[in-house]
């Protein structure tokens, strides 16, 4: 069974998302929540690394409620990122054998 990684801090303020991506197995899922959702936008310092993770098969998600809270344009998310709501968060937690919460 695979691991769900959650990241809640902005990738432009801390390196937790970068570290998370570097330690994800091919079958892992990464969910961006709280301030980390700012990393979901295209054309940023972290977007290339996220795209590479997506291309390698890692599933990357962003929490809709946190994207909406911050007014981030959903039309400009990195290709391959899936938007989920809180119910989707629960599903991801249930589908994976454990949750690694990067702080």
């Amino acid at each position, binding site marked *: 069974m695979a691991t769900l990684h959650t990241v*809640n*801090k*902005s990738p*432009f*303020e801390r390196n937790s998302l970068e570290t998370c991506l570097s330690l994800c197995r091919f079958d892992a899922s990464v969910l961006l929540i*709280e*301030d980390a959702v*700012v990393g979901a*936008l*295209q*054309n*940023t*310092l972290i*977007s290339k690394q996220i795209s590479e993770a997506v291309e390698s098969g890692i599933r990357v998600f962003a929490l*809709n*409620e*946190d994207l*909406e*809270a*911050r*007014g*981030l*344009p959903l039309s*400009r998310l990195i290709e391959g990122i899936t938007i989920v*709501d*809180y119910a989707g968060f629960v599903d991801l937690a249930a589908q994976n054998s454990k949750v690694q919460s990067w702080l």
Partner: protein
Amino acid sequence: MSVSKSFVCINRKAPYGTIYALEALEVVLIAGAFEQQVKLIFMDDGVYQLTRNQNPAGIGMKNFSKTFGALSDYDVDQIFVDSESLNLRGLDATDLQRLTHETNDAEERLSIKVVPRKELVDIIESADVLFNF
């Protein structure tokens, strides 16, 4: 005797994930209410505080971004945004709220100025008091 000083508030944190952004706004409103001269700088992740269309209902928080629109009532109408911070985050001026104020001859002016980082040096140096959030 009332004393008026020049305040500059530097905002470098994204909204909602931490309490910094909201607390900074409270401080600015208080300074404005005491008729101090206040300028705001938004840089690094602070630029996310000014995005349009914020809706934090889903995370159970108050949409304090609407309060930026009331700053001009306190004569807080000089808001500087670091262009480099926007660029590095895939954003530009059109992603930000359109905040305006009226000049003495009732002309409408934009309150937000997107400026290159080097222009922030003089703004910071012009302050009597600096607040960092």
